[in-house]
């Protein structure tokens, strides 16, 4: 009895004390005294040259907007966790990168500012690739503008192809399987480096008319989805011509390819600067992903700039987004080839469709599946990948694994309700 009383008394006292302390804590300065506004921009790193390019673009912006200073803040690890924690804590940047795949969930919470009211005619929304822009729309409103994108293409090692007597990259999955057999050398070199993850395989999952997600619920255990993965799994389990990076001690697909442990990988535009930096001696080419049942398919990943709904400097923030996703800013940002432009006019001007390495990536944009499918996709991805891996490793049949994963994903969706 006594104990209970003193506990509750202590609790009340503590609450009082904490509210007192809150009352005393200095309120943050909101408006700077000078007429200069400082806004912060959060993003992830990328390689040092890429970062320098961004800083260059930002300093161009500062020159043309002398009353705005931009502070770039780089988040290297667990980007979304940090962004969410900062949004809750009220310490998030004014403008930040947002992967399309995470966008619907975050937009639903109301933490992102809708941008329609800021846009004027000169900004020319119609110039954006529709698919990429739509990834940031919710209920008819635009919450972000895509800064760049990449699709997946087939990277192939020319030297290994020559040694195996293959003259050109495979055009269909059947050809790919046959080539991979020729290219594989035991467990030292695999024909194909793969990532057994839904974000890389979504287009494949729906290639036979199946649906991964229906009305915010997982439906990927249906036969039409399961069947579509069969060739992919068989390459690893039966042919033993495909492996994931960790099986050969590599940290990523690009690394596996660069180290010569895979003769082919399916990667995006990011892999081109990576190869140039890390493995400059490897001679490789790119091609469109092989067709599945005669149909072309690939993934498209896009990242946009969004505005914090609690930003104290919304006008300045919009100026920044407008510049960065405008024709001039985007042209500079994508001019060095780290990323592909989402504006048609910029794409035409830079001519990446004619670039030898990037051509196949640009061609993919027309038929790619954009990696975004509603607010529940992160949960569904997690559960799918977890179980898909066990099927990939041959521990259990795929239909069983996916049935379990589907059940689990839907339970987890129920937990968040």
């Amino acid at each position, binding site marked *: 009895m*006594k*104990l209970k009383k*003193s*506990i509750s008394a*202590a609790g009340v006292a503590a609450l009082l004390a*904490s*509210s007192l*302390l*809150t009352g005393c*804590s*200095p309120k*943050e300065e909101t408006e700077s005294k000078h007429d200069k506004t400082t806004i912060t921009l959060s993003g992830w*790193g990328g390689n*040092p040259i890429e970062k320098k390019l961004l800083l260059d673009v930002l300093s161009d912006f500062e020159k043309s907007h002398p009353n705005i200073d931009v502070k770039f*803040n*780089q*988040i*290297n*690890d*667990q980007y979304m966790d*940090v962004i969410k*924690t*900062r949004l*809750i*804590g*009220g*310490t998030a940047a004014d403008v930040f990168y947002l992967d399309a795949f995470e966008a619907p969930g975050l937009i639903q919470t109301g933490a992102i500012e809708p941008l329609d009211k800021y846009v004027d005619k000169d900004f020319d929304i119609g110039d954006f690739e529709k698919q990429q822009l739509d990834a940031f729309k919710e209920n008819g409103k635009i919450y972000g503008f895509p800064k760049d994108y990449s699709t997946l293409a087939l990277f192939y090692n020319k030297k290994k192809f020559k040694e195996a007597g293959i003259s050109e990259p495979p055009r269909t999955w059947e050809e790919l399987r046959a080539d991979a057999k020729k290219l594989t050398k035991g467990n030292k070199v695999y024909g194909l480096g793969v990532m057994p993850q839904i974000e890389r395989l979504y287009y494949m999952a729906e290639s036979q008319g199946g649906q991964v997600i229906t009305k915010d619920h997982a439906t990927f255990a249906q036969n039409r989805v399961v069947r579509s993965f069969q060739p992919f799994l068989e390459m690893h389990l039966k042919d033993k011509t495909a492996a994931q990076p960790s099986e050969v*001690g*590599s*940290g*990523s697909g690009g*690394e596996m390819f660069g*180290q010569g442990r895979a003769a082919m990988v399916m990667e995006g535009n990011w892999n081109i600067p990576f190869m140039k930096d890390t493995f400059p001696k490897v001679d490789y080419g790119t091609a469109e992903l092989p067709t599945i049942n005669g149909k072309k398919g690939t993934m498209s990943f896009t990242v946009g700039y969004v505005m914090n709904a609690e930003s104290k400097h919304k006008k300045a923030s919009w100026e920044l987004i407008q510049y960065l996703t405008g024709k001039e800013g985007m042209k500079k940002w994508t001019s060095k080839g780290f990323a592909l432009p989402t504006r048609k006019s910029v794409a035409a001007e830079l001519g990446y469709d004619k670039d030898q390495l990037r051509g196949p990536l640009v061609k993919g944009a027309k038929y790619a599946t954009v990696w975004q499918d509603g607010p529940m996709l992160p949960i569904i991805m997690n559960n799918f990948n977890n179980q898909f891996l066990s099927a990939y490793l041959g521990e259990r049949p795929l239909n069983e694994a996916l049935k379990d994963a589907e059940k689990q994903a839907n339970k987890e969706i129920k937990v968040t309700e």
Partner: protein
Amino acid sequence: MKKRPIGRTILYAILIIYAVITIFPFLWALSSSFKSLGEIVSGTIYFIPENFTLDNYKEIFTREPLFGRWLLNSLFIAAAGTFLNLIFNSMAGYALARLTFPGKKSIFIIILAVLMIPFQVTLIPNFLILKELGWLNTYQGMIIPGAVNATFIFMMRQFFINFPKEVEEAAAIDGLGKFGTFFRIVLPLAKPALAAQTIFVFMAFWNDFMRPLVILSDESMFTLPLGLNSFKGQFISFWNYIMAASMVFTLPILVLYAFFNRYFVKGIKFTGEK
């Protein structure tokens, strides 16, 4: 005493084998930190680097300009936190052992109860309270919530209960008040217990991962473990850098330990009469 040579040999064998097991990972990390990336990815396993290089150490400080800042953050937070813990825990431990006041027993029970609560229970509310205080992403947000520790209040109480009463009585005769007695006479004599506490508390602050992960979001405020994790995120598969950074992180605590080592085992007292 009769020695048993076979038993001794077995004991030495146990000790030596385990010493090798313990030190092996550190030596491997140390040796990797002196290797070039080329040697790291080549997959050769040599303990002595083929081409000994200090470049990794140079590189981590230039490639990650915040590195020094993280080191300072960690040092400051751990030092300040340890200092407050030593004073506050000892004061409370002393009061619980030596002074009479109403509610003492309930307070002691509450402190024991607090020991049992996993800190994850308080993690989320703490985050929200710190948010209200405006203490997210600040030093005080990292230091103050951890400035007392139920375990060491308990340890200090056990220590002071066994402490000879005569010393304090003499001080009282000399006209020193309770505070004077405590800070001038009792505390200096509690060195072994304080030394043990210093190492434990410093280590807890220094190594803490989850609290800074939640509280600190600005990279320039990061402590070493967070910084190291972020560094790993950025230089994934550059194991030569990661190992060099790990070695830099480990050094300060080794120095501290070397310094306090002699008090260490003596001061640990978790059991004993109540």
